[in-house]
C-alpha cells in the first residue's frame, strides 16, 4: 500500500459535505443532469446491464459447444446466440465501455475543467445509446438476429428472415452516441484545459481518449451510412450491394471494415490510457518515454484506418491489395509494441505494489501481448487463409477485447472507484476476483487458439466428434464458468462498498493527476477553484528531491 502520509495520516476521513452525488436526489435530477460525472454513472449502469446480457449469450454458446453435436439448441438458434452476443457486446458494451464511463467522468477532471464542452450533447449521447439499445433489445426479444455482428450482405439485406432491420437501426443509432462523445472529447481537450495544462502535461489517459475520439468522428459516420444503405435496400426492395443490378457485395465489406477495424482501437485505446495511469501509479515512477506513448496513441489511430483489408484476404479482393494491407497491418504493430515496451520499462526498478488495479494492469499487458502477436499471425496472408474464420481468430480478438479492454475497464473502475463513489472497495475480495478472472480468462480462450489452429470453424453449432476437440471445448467452457464467477463477484462487492465501504480520502493511491486533488466524490463543479498546473505529468518522485534538483543541477 501507499504510505500513510499521502493518505492524510491518521486523521479520520470524512466525506465532503457537498458533492455531485448528494447535490440532488430526485430521479429527474439524474435523468436531466448535465453533469458529466452523473452522465458517466448513467452510462455505467447501462453498459453493465448490456455486459451481462451479452454474457448470457456467451454462456449459451459455451454450453452448446460442450458436446460435438448440436443438441442443446437448434443451429438456427445458435446462429442467433452468437450474433446477439457480438452485437450487444460490441455496440452496447465495448464501444462505450471505457470512454463513456471513465472517460466521461475523468476527462474534465484530469484537464482541470468544470465539465465537457457540450454538457447537453453529452446527455443526449446517453439517451441515443439507450434508444439504440432499445431497438437492439427489441430485435433480441422479438426473435433475434442471425447475420453475425458483421451484417454481411447479401445475407443481411436479402436472405435473412430475422429481425435485421431493428438490429441495424439500433446499431445505426448507437453510432451517433459514439460520434457525439468523440466530438465532445476533442473540443474539450482542445479548448478547456486548465492554465498550465500544456499538451505534454496531459495524462496519457487524455492522449489515448483524444486518439479514440478521432476514430469515433472519422470512422463511425462511414458505418452509419453503410448500415443506412442496407436499410434503404430493404425499404426500396432493391439491392445496392446486389450483383444482379450491377452492385458489389464486397463494397459492403470494405465500407464495414473501414469502420470496424478502427473500431477495435475505439475499444482498445482508452483501455491503454487506463493502463498507463495504473502502471505509473503502482510502480511509483513517471512514464518511460511519455511522448512516445502519447504519439503511439495517435499513430495507432491513424494507421488503424489503413489496414481494414486484412479482414478480406479470402473475400476475393485483389492479391496486390491484400499484400499492401498485410504490410500495413504489420506496421500498426510498431506503435502497439512501443506501448508494451514502455509500460514494461516503467515497471523496471519501480516500487511496485500489487493492489487490485495493478493486478488488472499486469494482466492486460500479458493478454495484450498474446492477442497482439497472434494478430501478426493473422496479418500474414498465407497463415490467415489457413485460420480464417476459425476459433484461432475468435481467441485472438477475445484476447484483445476481453483480455485487453475488459481488464483495463475493470482495473480502471477499481482504481477510480473511490473517486466515483467516495468509498473504498474491499481489497481482499477485489484481488480474489482479479485472480479468478485471470485464470478463467486464460482457460476459456487459450484452448481456442489450439482448436482453431486445428481447423475448428467459428459460427457452427456442431463440430466433428473428435476427443481432442471436445476436450479443448470442455476446457473452454469450464474456463468460461470460472470467468463468469469472476465477473459476478464485483457485481456484489462494488455495490456493497457503496454503502459499507470505508470512506475514501481525496487521494487514496497517492497518485498524481488533477482528479486526485479534488474531494472524493468531487463537487458538481469539480474543483473549488480552477487549478493551475505547474508540474510535469507523473511526478512520482518525491517532491523535495525535485526542489533540490530544481532543473539546474543534473538530475540523478
Amino acid at each position, binding site marked *: 500500500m501507499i504510505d500513510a502520509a499521502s493518505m492524510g495520516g491518521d486523521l479520520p476521513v470524512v466525506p465532503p459535505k*457537498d458533492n455531485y452525488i448528494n*447535490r*440532488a436526489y430526485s430521479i429527474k*435530477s439524474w435523468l436531466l*443532469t*448535465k*453533469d458529466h460525472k452523473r452522465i458517466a454513472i448513467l452510462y455505467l449502469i447501462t453498459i453493465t446491464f448490456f455486459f451481462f446480457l451479452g454474457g448470457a449469450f456467451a454462456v449459451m454458446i459455451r454450453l452448446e459447444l460442450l458436446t460435438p453435436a448440436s443438441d442443446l439448441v437448434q443451429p438456427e438458434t445458435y446462429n442467433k446466440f452468437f450474433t446477439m452476443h457480438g452485437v450487444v457486446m460490441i455496440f452496447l458494451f465495448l464501444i462505450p465501455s471505457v470512454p463513456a464511463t471513465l472517460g466521461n467522468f475523468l476527462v474534465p477532471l484530469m484537464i482541470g*475543467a*468544470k*465539465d*465537457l*464542452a*457540450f*454538457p447537453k450533447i453529452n446527455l443526449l449521447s446517453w439517451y441515443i445509446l439507450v434508444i439504440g439499445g432499445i431497438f437492439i433489445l427489441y430485435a433480441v426479444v422479438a426473435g433475434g438476429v442471425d447475420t453475425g455482428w458483421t451484417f454481411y450482405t447479401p445475407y443481411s439485406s436479402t436472405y435473412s428472415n430475422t429481425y435485421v432491420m431493428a438490429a441495424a437501426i439500433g446499431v445505426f443509432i448507437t453510432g451517433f452516441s459514439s*460520434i457525439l462523445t468523440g*466530438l*465532445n472529447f*476533442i*473540443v*474539450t481537450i*482542445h*479548448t*478547456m484545459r486548465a492554465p498550465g495544462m500544456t499538451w505534454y502535461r496531459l495524462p496519457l489517459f487524455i492522449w489515448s481518449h483524444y486518439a479514440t475520439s478521432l476514430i469515433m*468522428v*472519422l*470512422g*463511425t*459516420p*462511414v458505418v*452509419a*451510412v*453503410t448500415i*443506412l*444503405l442496407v436499410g*434503404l435496400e430493404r*425499404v*426500396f*426492395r*432493391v439491392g*445496392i450491394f446486389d*450483383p*444482379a*443490378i*450491377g*452492385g*458489389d457485395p*464486397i*463494397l459492403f465489406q470494405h*465500407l464495414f471494415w473501414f469502420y470496424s477495424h478502427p473500431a477495435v482501437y475505439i475499444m482498445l485505446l482508452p483501455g491503454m490510457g487506463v493502463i498507463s495511469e495504473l502502471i505509473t501509479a503502482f510502480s511509483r515512477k513517471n512514464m518511460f518515454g511519455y511522448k512516445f506513448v502519447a504519439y503511439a496513441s495517435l499513430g495507432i489511430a491513424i494507421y488503424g484506418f489503413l489496414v481494414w483489408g486484412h479482414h478480406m484476404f479470402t473475400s*476475393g479482393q485483389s492479391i496486390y491489395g491484400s499484400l499492401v494491407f498485410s504490410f500495413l497491418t504489420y506496421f500498426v504493430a510498431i506503435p502497439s509494441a512501443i506501448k508494451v515496451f514502455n509500460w514494461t520499462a516503467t515497471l523496471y526498478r519501480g516500487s511496485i505494489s500489487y493492489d487490485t488495479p495493478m493486478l488488472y494492469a499486469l494482466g492486460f499487458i500479458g493478454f495484450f501481448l498474446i492477442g497482439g502477436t497472434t494478430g501478426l499471425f493473422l496479418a500474414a496472408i498465407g497463415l490467415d487463409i489457413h485460420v480464417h474464420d476459425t476459433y484461432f481468430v475468435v481467441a485472438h480478438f477475445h484476447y484483445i477485447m476481453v483480455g485487453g479492454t475488459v481488464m483495463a475497464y475493470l482495473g480502471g473502475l477499481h482504481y477510480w472507484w473511490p473517486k466515483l463513489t467516495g468509498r473504498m472497495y474491499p481489497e481482499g475480495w477485489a484481488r480474489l476476483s482479479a485472480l479468478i478472472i485471470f485464470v478463467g480468462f486464460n482457460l476459456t480462450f487459450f484452448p481456442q487458439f489450439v482448436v482453431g489452429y486445428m481447423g475448428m470453424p467459428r459460427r457452427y453449432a456442431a463440430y466433428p466428434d473428435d476427443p481432442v476437440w471436445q476436450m479443448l471445448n470442455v476446457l473452454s467452457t469450464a474456463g468460461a464458468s470460472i470467468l463468469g464467477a469472476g465477473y459476478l463477484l464485483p457485481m456484489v462487492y462494488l455495490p456493497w462498498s457503496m454503502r459499507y465501504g470505508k470512506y475514501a480520502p481525496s487521494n487514496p493511491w497517492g497518485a498524481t493527476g488533477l482528479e486526485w486533488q479534488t474531494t472524493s466524490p468531487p*463537487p*458538481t*463543479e469539480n474543483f*473549488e*477553484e*480552477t487549478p493551475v498546473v505547474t508540474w510535469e505529468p507523473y511526478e512520482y518522485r518525491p517532491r523535495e528531491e525535485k526542489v533540490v534538483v530544481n532543473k539546474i543541477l543534473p538530475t540523478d
Partner: protein
Amino acid sequence: MAEAVHTTMEHPASAHAALQHHFENMEQQREAGTLGMWIFLVTEIMFFGGMFMAYILYRSYNADAFAAASNRLNVTMGFINTIVLICSSLTMALAVYYSQVGKRKMIVVMLILTMMLGTTFLVVKAFEYYDKYEKSEIPGRLFPSRPFNWYAEEEHGKQVTQEPARDAATERNPQAVPTGQEQKPDASFASRAEMFFFIYFAMTGIHALHMVIGIGMLIVLTIMAWRDRFSPEYHSPVELGGLYWHFVDIVWIFLFPLLYLLGAHGISGGH
C-alpha cells in the same frame, strides 16, 4: 436547476448572460462551439463519403447505364436548384455579417430569405421526385403500383434511343452471377440503370433531409434574432448555422455535376 445554485464557481455579475457555467469566458465558449461545428462537418463529410464511394465504384462498373440514366434527370431543374442554393449561401453569409455588426432587422431579413430559398429548392426537388414517380423511375418496389420500369416510356409508344442494342441479349436476367477474377457484375442494362436511380435517390434524399434540418435550424435562429439575442459580442449561433448551411450547399455543388452532368449526351435532359 439544482446543479446551478452553487455559489463558489459562479461567474461574476459582469459576465455575458449567454456565458454557460462551465466556460471561463465568451472567447472560450465561442472557440469550443466553432471547433465542435467543424468536427461535426468532418463527420458529415465521412458520412456522405461512403455514398460518394459507392457512386464512384458503381459508375466505373456501369458507366454506360449510369450515363443513360443520368440523361433522364431534368438538368434544367437541377441547374435552377444550384442557382437557388448559391443565392441562399449568399444570404446566409450576409446574415452572419449583419450579426457581427449587430443589425437585428437585417439578420432577420436575411435569415428569412435564406429559408425561402431553401424551401424553393425543396419544392423544385419535390417536383423532380414526382416526375420520377410518374415515369416509373423510382427504384425497386417502394410503390408497388409503380415498380421500377426502365422501359415505361417505350411501352407507352415513345422511342427511347440511348441503350446499346447488345443489351437486349442480357435483358431480364437478374440472376446473373459475378464471373471471372475481377468480379465484374453482369447485370442487365435496365437493372444497372436502376442502380443509378437508387444512388440518386439515396444521395439527394439524404441531402434534402439535411436541408429540412437546416431550415428548422434557421427558424430557431430567426426567432432568436427577432428577440434580439445576438450582438457583436455574442453571435456564434448564427455563425455556426452559417457553417452548416454552407456545408449542405457544397454537398449539392458536388452532387449536381456528378448526378446530372457527367456523361450527359445533351443538355435537354434526354427527353
